[in-house]
């Protein structure tokens, strides 16, 4: 058969696609369980960190999670509850459109939805080195203990000066990542209003 003939070209392309896709599917299938358990671990670690429950090694995550975190099924999806330092704290999954893809995170608030207790990123596709820096500790640490204002929180762009004040409901954005910072602000505020409506309905208990 001629190498540049129509039939050979079509057959070759067809077969080569089947072969490569077969191996990809095989690799995906073989690692599926591992990947799923890794993802569950990532999510649980993020929930623990957001709620302020300290753990030292990944092995502790599952046992700590089972012992301390209870799941409330509300009409707005699952809410994770834990009592830390004598205070009830609530966490929920948040997701919002970032610049390139969905940003998934965990947001934890106190019982009266007056302060943010923690914020952890589960996954994102933001530009490495720019928007991707929302996953850096300094950015996430800003949320802990920040007072929730009437409008939620504001992520300051351009005017952020390393704001250390937890009372003013203001956080610093990531330099060079206005859109990502805006996206984080929007998704956090949306979740805060959900938490508030849940609180007003008596859903947080």
């Amino acid at each position, binding site marked *: 058969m001629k*190498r540049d003939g129509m039939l050979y070209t079509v057959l070759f392309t067809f077969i080569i696609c089947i072969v490569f896709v077969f191996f990809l599917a095989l690799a995906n299938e073989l*690692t599926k369980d591992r990947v799923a358990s890794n993802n569950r671990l990532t999510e649980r670690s993020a929930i623990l960190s957001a709620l302020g429950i300290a753990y030292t090694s990944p092995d502790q995550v599952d046992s700590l999670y089972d012992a301390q975190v209870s799941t409330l099924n509300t009409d707005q999806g699952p809410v994770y509850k834990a009592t830390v330092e004598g205070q009830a704290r609530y966490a929920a999954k948040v997701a919002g459109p970032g610049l390139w893809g969905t940003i998934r995170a965990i947001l934890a608030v106190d019982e009266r939805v007056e302060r943010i207790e923690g914020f952890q990123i589960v996954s994102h596709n*933001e530009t*490495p*080195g720019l928007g991707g820096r929302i996953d850096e500790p300094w950015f996430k640490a800003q949320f802990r203990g920040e007072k929730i204002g009437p409008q939620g929180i504001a992520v300051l762009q351009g005017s952020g000066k390393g704001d250390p004040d937890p009372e003013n409901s203001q956080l610093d954005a990531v330099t060079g990542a206005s859109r990502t910072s805006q996206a984080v602000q929007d998704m956090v505020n949306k979740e805060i209003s959900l938490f508030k409506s849940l609180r007003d309905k008596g859903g947080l208990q």
Partner: protein
Amino acid sequence: MSAAKKRGPVSEILVQNLWWNNPIFIQVLGICSTLAVTNNLTNTAIMTIGVSLTTAFSSMSLSAMNKLIPNKVRMIVQVLVISFFVIIIDIVLRAYLPDISRSLGPYVGLIITNCIIMGRAEGFARSNPPLLSFWDGLTSGFGYMAVLMLIAVVRELLGFGSLFGIPLLSALLGAAFTPWTIMIMAPSAFFLVALVMWGAKTLQENMKIASKTAVQTKQGGAK
């Protein structure tokens, strides 16, 4: 190239890819990732290792099936093979090194967009045997790695004051250290790549002149 005749193909490929025909400062390929990832040494290291492995394996498999690939769909098959290896790397990282996979996030996918991989597939693997193509791909990746690491050292040190995330300049100078913000952002890599190109090309010219006067023989061109 200078002294080329004395070396065997294996060391000749190494020298070409690392220096005389470096993917970054001579071929000017893979510039997008050079701008994107070099503000952080850890990410740069992992990205360049990923590119080296992908280039090596895709060059090897494309060279092995070279005789079978119809000309009309050559590039489509190249893209298929390259993306296959990138996805395999992604799957392996997600299953066995979840922390690295998480910190890399979109980097792994970005390997596909690296022009060096297709450049080597077209420029070398098409007309060379599989093992030599593997070596060519790997060393091309190393040439890319060398330049990116150099740029990343400058950018991370001046932009964050750290190396591999370990505070260095910022710890040493304390409050006197002011992060040079543009170093964190992509444009600074433009200037640094240009400086590297300038330096490397000047050095290469000088080396060529030096070897010409030393040997007093006519040398072939760089390409």
